[in-house]
């Protein structure tokens, strides 16, 4: 088991390095000259040269990449300025340290992701479950039709509609502002409930359909029939012999979806003006702020790759058939 974990972590490092290199090359090749951008409108060729020098843009690309990596693990110097590890450079736009931008915004994105995940798991799994048990009834039909529709509603439409109705028209909710929980729990909840809902709807619909399909499959299993033939109570039959097998595969999908969201909910955060990683990504792309784009790309890749490993490890403990034999 330990060896397996170490092997997987080795793989993670390789993948992250590859993602790093890849994004670095893409931005290097495809972007306008950063020195010109930083320099602004009133700019002399000498100044551009000196910026190039400080940023190391005159070096060969691989040397630059190496310095970028070094910055992350050991820190680096830009001219006279020392950027201590983990150093992801400075925003071209604001000159803020990219690392501190991330640490400031990550809690917002995590709050958005966790809240949405709780909502969609509850709604999706419970809804799908009831549908499976009441298969073919009006409840099942209605819920599944809604789920099909819900998947196809774009996030931004839902976000704008909710905002218009609840904030502008009915004025039951304040405009989202991402306050700290400790300062004002009620305001915190009121600010996040719309982003959570908007993000959760699509996933909930997907999970409801998935749960329903899995449970219905499980009800056809021979071991489910065995469980009934054994004379177990209905609740025990359902809990042990339908739910556990039906929900285990869903944990995998959930892990990946959740990890993806930690890298920022671009549209939702932007629409609600929440200062999370997603909004930071959108802003940086709009302004071609390369160090920030690099950082958010890496962060998203980091979450997805780590999420993958966590999911695999969790799955091996949930499903005895894939359990890594330790003896």
């Amino acid at each position, binding site marked *: 088991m330990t060896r397996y974990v170490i092997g997987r972590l080795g793989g993670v490092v390789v993948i992250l390095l590859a993602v790093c290199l890849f994004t670095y090359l893409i931005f290097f090749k495809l972007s306008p000259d950063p020195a010109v951008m930083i320099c602004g409108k009133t700019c002399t060729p000498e100044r551009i040269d000196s910026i190039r020098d400080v940023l190391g843009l005159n070096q060969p690309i691989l040397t630059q990449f190496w310095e970028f990596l070094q910055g992350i693990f050991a820190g680096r110097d830009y001219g006279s300025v020392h950027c201590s590890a983990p150093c992801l450079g400075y925003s071209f736009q604001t000159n803020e340290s990219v690392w501190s931008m991330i640490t400031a915004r990550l809690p917002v994105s995590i709050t958005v992701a966790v809240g949405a995940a709780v909502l969609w798991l509850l709604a999706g799994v419970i809804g799908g479950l009831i549908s499976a048990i009441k298969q073919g009834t009006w409840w099942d039909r209605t819920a599944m039709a809604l789920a099909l529709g819900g998947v196809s509603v774009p996030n931004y439409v839902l976000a704008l509609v909710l905002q218009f109705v609840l904030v502008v028209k009915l004025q039951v909710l304040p405009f989202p502002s991402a306050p700290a929980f400790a300062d004002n729990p009620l305001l915190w909840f009121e600010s996040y409930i719309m982003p959570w809902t908007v993000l959760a709807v699509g996933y909930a619909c997907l999970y409801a359909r998935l749960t329903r399909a899995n449970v219905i499959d499980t009800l056809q299993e021979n*071991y489910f029939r065995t469980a009934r033939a054994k004379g177990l109570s209905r609740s025990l039959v359902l809990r*042990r012999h339908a739910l556990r097998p039906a929900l285990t595969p869903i944990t995998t999908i959930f892990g990946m979806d959740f990890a993806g969201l930690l890298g920022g909910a671009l549209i939702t955060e932007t629409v609600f003006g929440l200062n999370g990683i997603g909004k930071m990504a959108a802003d940086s792309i709009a302004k071609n702020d390369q160090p920030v784009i690099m950082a958010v790309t890496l962060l998203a890749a980091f979450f997805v790759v780590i999420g993958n490993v966590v999911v695999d490890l969790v799955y091996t403990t949930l499903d005895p058939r894939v359990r890594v034999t330790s003896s």
Partner: protein
Amino acid sequence: MTADLFVVEDLTVTLPTGRGPVDVVKNVSFTVGRDDTLGIVGESGSGKSMTALAVLGLLPRGAETSGSIRLEGKELLGRSERELQSIRGNAISMVFQDPLSSLNPYYTVGLQIEEMYRAHRGGSRRDARKVAIEALERVHIPDAGRRIDHYPHQFSGGQRQRIMIAMALCCSPSLLIADEPTTALDVTVQAQILELMAELQSTTGTGMIFITHDLAVISSIAKRVLVMCAGDPVEYGTAEQVFSDPHHDYTRTLLDAVPRIDDEVAS
């Protein structure tokens, strides 16, 4: 008569299908006594499994049954789900065809035997565990004390069917229904399972219904035989009677399909 442990009279099972209701079991009657084995034979789709499932009230949704099914004089048809739960696995147990998929892969075999024992007998987990280990020993699973904590996929097909049998017998039922318990197994394992079932029956005195489409298997285990064809009971009598002097063409066809050892000796 001692044959009256279990009586089925005029059992008819109707299933809803796309083309309206279909009688998949028609007016079937038979009896099983203590320490007695009834074989039910018939080709695929003849209604053998539906007969068995009707006994336990496990028919597909929308199924309708008529007639009478009595265990020790008590009517089983029309019982509530609750009452049926206390009968299933307790008074009447069932072993299914496919041992590979009949056990839940997510739980140890121990837990799957224990949960059944405790559902009917209550008691602590520790007591149930003792019963489960004894049950595994009875079906000759070696090293039962350790193997009880293993998962189904860690056992062979034959072993898994032994475990199913151990489970079915752990509450000492008066009737055991075995629905093609050996069909999915290879011939040597098949013989071992049959031997085991005969051995267990002789020690427990459980009445048994043995369902198969293999006449060779029936003749080795059952004293009496019911032959079914498309839901109809076409022949019912002692094995000797049915096999030596079949009244129905269908039985003859079935018999002709069996390669017989004495045929080869004779030729």
